[in-house]
């Protein structure tokens, strides 16, 4: 089948999509956007988190056909050229990136959090990011990164 969607502001078309393919597969293998990650493909790890019409979802749990005609924003669509966005910058500075496989999903989930709660408490950060598994950091520096990003974005707005 053919699937049309708006991805990171551009109209994109994927052809010959098998009905069983996920949005994640189409992004990664058909549209050249492998930034969203394939760590569990059953919605447990959050590594494939993307915005679907501004709602954060696990792209592995969305059938490709469900994205027909909708807007998708992935981790690749956040930075402005070479310029990192404040969340990305904070993750790098805070040492929240080690292997980095969980990072794209966490970056998107952090955007989603800060859009909803501009100055989140630690408890709110923990609750909001509980669906994103990280095996390297123990999460302390991820908390640091979210706090840093939130304070900078608050200051900028």
């Amino acid at each position, binding site marked *: 089948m053919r699937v049309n969607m708006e991805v990171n502001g551009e109209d994109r078309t994927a052809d010959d999509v098998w009905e069983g393919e996920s949005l994640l597969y189409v992004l990664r293998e058909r549209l050249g956007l492998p930034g969203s*990650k394939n760590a*569990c493909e*059953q919605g447990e790890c959050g590594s494939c988190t993307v915005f679907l019409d501004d709602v954060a979802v696990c792209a592995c749990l969305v059938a490709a056909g469900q994205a027909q005609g909708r807007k998708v924003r992935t981790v690749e669509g956040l930075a402005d050229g070479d310029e990192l966005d404040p969340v990305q910058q904070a993750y*790098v500075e805070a040492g929240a990136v080690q292997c*980095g496989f969980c990072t794209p999903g966490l970056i998107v989930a952090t955007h989603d959090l800060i859009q909803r709660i501009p100055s989140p408490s630690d408890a709110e950060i923990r609750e909001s990011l509980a669906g994103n*598994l990280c*095996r390297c950091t*123990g999460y302390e520096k991820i908390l640091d990164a979210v706090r840093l990003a939130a304070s900078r974005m608050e200051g900028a707005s």
Partner: protein
Amino acid sequence: MTKASVEVRGGVGQSPTRPDGGLKVKGEFAYSSDLFADEMLWGATLRSPHPYARVKLVGVGGALRIPGVHAVLTHADVPGRNRFGLEHPDQPVLAEDVVRYQGEPVAIVAADHPETARRAAAAIEVEYEVLTPVTDPAAALRPDATVLHPAHETGNVVRHVRVRRGEQGLRAPVVVTGEYTVGMQDQAFLGPESGLAVPAEDGGIDLFVATQWLHVDQSQVAESLGLPPEKVRITLAGVGGAFGAREDLSMQVHASMLALHTGKPVKMVYGREESFFGHVHRHPAVLKYEHGATADGRLLYVSARILLDGGAYASSTTAVVANAATLGVGPYEVPSVHIDCYGVYTNNPPCGAMRGFGAVQACFAYESQMDKLAEALGMDPVELRVLNAVSEGSTMPTGQIIDSAAPVAELLKLVQSKPMPAPAADDLREMPGGVSNTTHGEGVVRGVGYGVGIKNVGFSEGFDDYSTARVRLEVIAGEPVVSVHTAAAEVGQGLVTLQAQIARTELGVEKVTVLPADTSVGSAGSSSASRQSYVTGGAVQAACQAVRASLDELGHGDIVSVLGDRVIEHTVEWRHRPTESLDSHGQGTAHVQYAFAAHRAVVDVDVELGLVRVVELACAQDVGKAMNPQAVEGQIQGGSAQGLGLAVMEEIQVVDGKVRNPSFTDYLIPTILDMPPMPIDVLELADPHAPYGLRGIGEPPTISATPAIVAAIRAATGMALTRIPVRPEHITGT
């Protein structure tokens, strides 16, 4: 040559940002599962559903007839040696007559879509004669047990290490005994096993994979493909975590076989379920200990019998056995030691390297014993540990003298003196059970526990443990530029950052490029055993010093004017000081360096429901030299998290040789809700034998976190808790 280090931005001791950080946060870093090539096919693996069976027949005809399928291969198609293995080549690339664990690869498929490949694999017809598996490691030791590897000289015993030190058969006024059990932990890295194999015009293969040791992959892949090593060129693709699970081969030979057979690039990516069958796990263990002490708390003897379940193939079991045996009494002075440690073959999943291997299992047992002894003596558990702690100059049970800092007592006192966290606020989110609303504080008891551990750094027992670094200095666009080339695997730990820091410090040049790791430069050894900062760090330092010496011969002054358009390049193979093998009594200077960490855990336990919330996990560790302080903290916190996982949640549940929970739905790793604040104290007591005085840091935090948490749960509940992970029913006794 002696030379004062040069002060430069981003050098040793600073925390420059990772060179790959920008790519990683933008989703542009190319992991092994992100690779793509024109006309690429997808590989899939058919695995045995049985833990032990004879393979009577493999029928590939039906699979081959599926449109889109390009190849279906079995053991008959393995071009070279159908065996691989880190220490003993005992594992078939594809099963021949027998399968020895559930998940053992039997056949492989290449097709034009991953789903087609999976369906074709499912369409392969295999006729098995199911055999009775050996699943109890104790039973595997019995004389009448089925011998799983008839060619192995010592039956089902992969290795037995004896350690005998001091007068044997002592008696003591105070004696405590215990039997402890450690479940099977998974590394659970997030990036699944994956890679791309590209057939080359010279008949060889270019392989892009996520691995921990490029050259040990290269030699094994070449052997199984029947190719000379130079025709197997391996480049490290982006690695999504490792923790030991990528030391053994997974898809490397399979993808290469399919690529050579079809003449097309072949990509293989394991799903999460397959990943649980695609790599080795942490050895489950049963550990029986007896500690004897004087009435005032001095250890007189320790005797132990440790049984490690190696599963179906040897992997790195021999090294795990040696670690558990030689580090089996922990960081304590013990005049009389009697340890027997066994690693055995069974039909359970193969076990091998995972962060802290061998030392993790032993530490849970000896630290549980120290708490039990403290209770028997009526002593404070930290005081007992401090009284018996090793220090520089102490003799280990192997007879090895600890010849650099061993601040065990100091580390314990550091975590003990940390301020206690506040009592839980009246907020559901701070209760065991959290927003599941299982308690509002009733039945919740706080407990505090301590643990301290010891780990060897680097490869032991006389292994020729080295790394190779090529460093090049030149002037580009009017400024000096250094490039560093090694085959050392960046697996997330920050080695790419560290290599550049060392080059900056040694050469005083800020612009440093770390080239992609590949096999066109000599081996760097494995990214394991907490060894890369030490060994590859040492190699990069030595190569930089050789470059500096050549530069000094050209003249002194500004690099740009001295060097002109000349290029200086040196390749150096660097070794740490040699170690010795163990004799028949487990005696010998077998280890390069020891590393220590201590934890204090504070927990709240809902004693009615058996739910645990770790409130705080404080760690103190001696790192010799904090080469990159931010990365040191990251290792300590990340390592502690894996120790927490083993304490209270992580276990591969194996019943009759079959894995019951191969998913992140059923195999739980800590989330951000499970992890507490982790305050850290870092000591920097230089090891004079090591580059920059550094001490390996990756593993110690994983080792001592687990017993500290379990001790805290015991303190809260009064339960004996001899098995990890601790389950709710162990706490409630139901």
